[in-house]
């Protein structure tokens, strides 16, 4: 039985919006209710459309944000309300890879300095030792030590993302939170990075929390999946089950919206009507009811709970699921 590395329970986060000096303060519930756990050495993906709260969830777990409510257990330690000064041990175990490889690397630092920065903060290694580790890690991510003394702007998007991965790996973390790591890349480069992430996982027994809007990428990389809509997970389970037997109408619609790269498979899609409602003023009852093709009366008033579906570990929050 693999060990659970990350467990989060009833996570909530709301932001206060200020309209103006006299405007009423409103709150935006970015994360309304999120619970899941990840076993060591596996990949869990959060999928959903923009504004569903998937990135906020990632930032809460890495404690770049403090949750309003709920628990975060990382490697047996509860960290949800810890102060910055107490977080150092967690920062070593949890590292992030960001979406935009252009914005997430400091343009005034050499690659060597960027990658070595976590070592400077967390260890007492000498410069020589740091350089040795940087050279090693560059090799691991498919660059060479000749790249170390250049600046970020001299690299292409794919290479920059490799630098971002090297920076995340240098502390030998247990959990990597990858927030849309390949969305800014071209397909031919995207596949290079996905392959690299998979290889690294096998090599270092890494655990990934993978945040993405792209279902085909998610299917390729994950072991389990959580589908998010307006701040809540509406369906979660092992990858195979989610893709072959989705239960929640939103998951079904999402899957059928993805254009398939095969012209013989042009098919009838479930096209959802309307747009994503605003999280400032979410719909009553089931949050998906305004766009749901199977909406019933109960959906408008009662918020559905996560219910177990036939297979193990497969849960869906929908009144249609028995």
């Amino acid at each position, binding site marked *: 039985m693999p060990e659970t590395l990350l467990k989060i329970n009833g996570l909530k986060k709301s932001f206060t919006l200020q309209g103006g000096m006299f405007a009423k303060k409103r709150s935006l519930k970015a994360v309304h209710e999120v619970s899941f756990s990840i076993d060591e050495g596996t990949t869990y993906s959060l999928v959903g*459309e923009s504004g569903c709260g998937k990135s906020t969830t990632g930032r809460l777990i890495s404690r770049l944000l403090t949750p309003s409510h709920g628990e975060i257990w990382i490697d047996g330690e509860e960290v949800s309300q810890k102060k910055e000064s107490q977080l150092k041990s967690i920062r070593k175990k949890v590292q992030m890879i960001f979406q935009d490889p252009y914005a997430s690397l400091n343009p005034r630092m050499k690659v060597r300095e960027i990658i070595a920065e976590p070592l400077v903060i967390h260890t007492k290694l000498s410069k020589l030792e740091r350089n040795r580790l940087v050279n090693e890690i560059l090799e691991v991510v498919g660059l060479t030590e000749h790249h170390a003394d250049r600046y970020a702007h001299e690299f292409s998007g794919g290479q920059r993302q490799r630098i971002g991965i090297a920076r995340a790996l240098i502390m030998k973390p247990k959990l990597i939170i990858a927030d849309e790591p390949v969305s800014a890349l071209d*397909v*031919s480069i995207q*596949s290079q990075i996905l392959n690299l992430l998979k290889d690294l996982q096998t090599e270092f027994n890494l655990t990934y929390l993978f945040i993405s809007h792209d*279902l*085909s990428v998610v*299917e390729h990389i994950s072991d389990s999946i959580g589908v998010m809509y307006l701040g809540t997970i509406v369906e979660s389970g092992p990858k195979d089950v989610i893709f072959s037997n989705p239960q929640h109408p939103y998951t079904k619609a999402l899957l059928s*919206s993805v*254009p398939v790269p095969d012209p013989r498979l042009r098919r009838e*899609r479930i096209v959802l009507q309307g747009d994503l409602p605003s999280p400032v003023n979410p719909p009553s009852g089931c949050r998906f009811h305004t766009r749901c093709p199977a909406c019933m009366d109960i959906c408008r008033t009662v918020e559905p709970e996560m219910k177990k579906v036939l297979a193990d570990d497969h849960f869906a929050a929908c009144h249609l699921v028995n």
Partner: protein
Amino acid sequence: MEKLLQVNQLETQFTKDKEKLKILRGVSFHINKGEVLGLVGESGCGKSLTSLSIMKLFKGTSGEIAGGRIVFKGEDLTHRSEREMRKIRGKQMAMIFQEPMTSLNPVMKIGEQLLEPIRLHLDLNEKQAKEHVIYILKKVGIPRAEEIIYEFPHQLSGGMRQRIMIAMAMSCNPQLLIADEPTTALDVTIQAQILELMKQLQKEEGMSVLLITHDLGVVAEMCDRVAVMYAGRVVEEANVFDLFESPKHPYTKGLIGSVPKIGQRKDKLTSIKGNVPDPSNMPKGCKFAPRCNDAKAICFEEEPNATDLGNGRMCSCWMFEEGRENVYA
């Protein structure tokens, strides 16, 4: 089949520090009447510049057409003046851009923006023009069209804004619609709505569409024929079924293999090694050769020409050039 648009050996260049840099290096393809042609490729391959060259939208840049021909409805557009182009833009060919927020004027009401091309190109009085705007908005599925015309772009969602852009492009019944990554900035469920709408409008109006995209899924879903671009040239042209079933050019093969497909279990994706070449520092010979697994000596020496493989298929690769026996001996 009648050809609506023919692009022949198109070359477009920019001037920087008195140095000329050719970005399009002989782009050739055609679009038949009533068909959807997909122009695919990765960032920097020149697909967007191709569309800007067809429309001659170079204002404020040093871009210019340096060679080749653009023939639209039998007329050569290559050397048309700005004034003549204005009569064509918006009326006979119209364009939708990727980012619906930046392509709408934020301080102009929706209705006013939609009236611009109509006033310019259609002979309608104010009342008729306004009715036409509402008719077009309803056609692209905008609810409460009568009120929306008095609102500003920031009051609408991304999907709605893209519908407005489509409405604007369609307002004068163009024969050619150029859509440059029309759904890239949108979420998948909204993308599905917009693709569905474009398909339906294309069928109803029988117009031709040049769809520029990097998403092979969108290509498979929407297009009749496809032209694949790499480093400023079309390297393969085929109908959509042939292209996905038996891609010929090594780049097309790599591209199709790189895309993870739902339902297809693969431990490893095929990937293309290396990066897209820098236009100011192009390799000699075939521009794909440094990344190609099948490259032979000649590929690094000379650039291959387009070879007709029959059935409307074209491919620029030494594998298919005549006399390849010598090359691939």
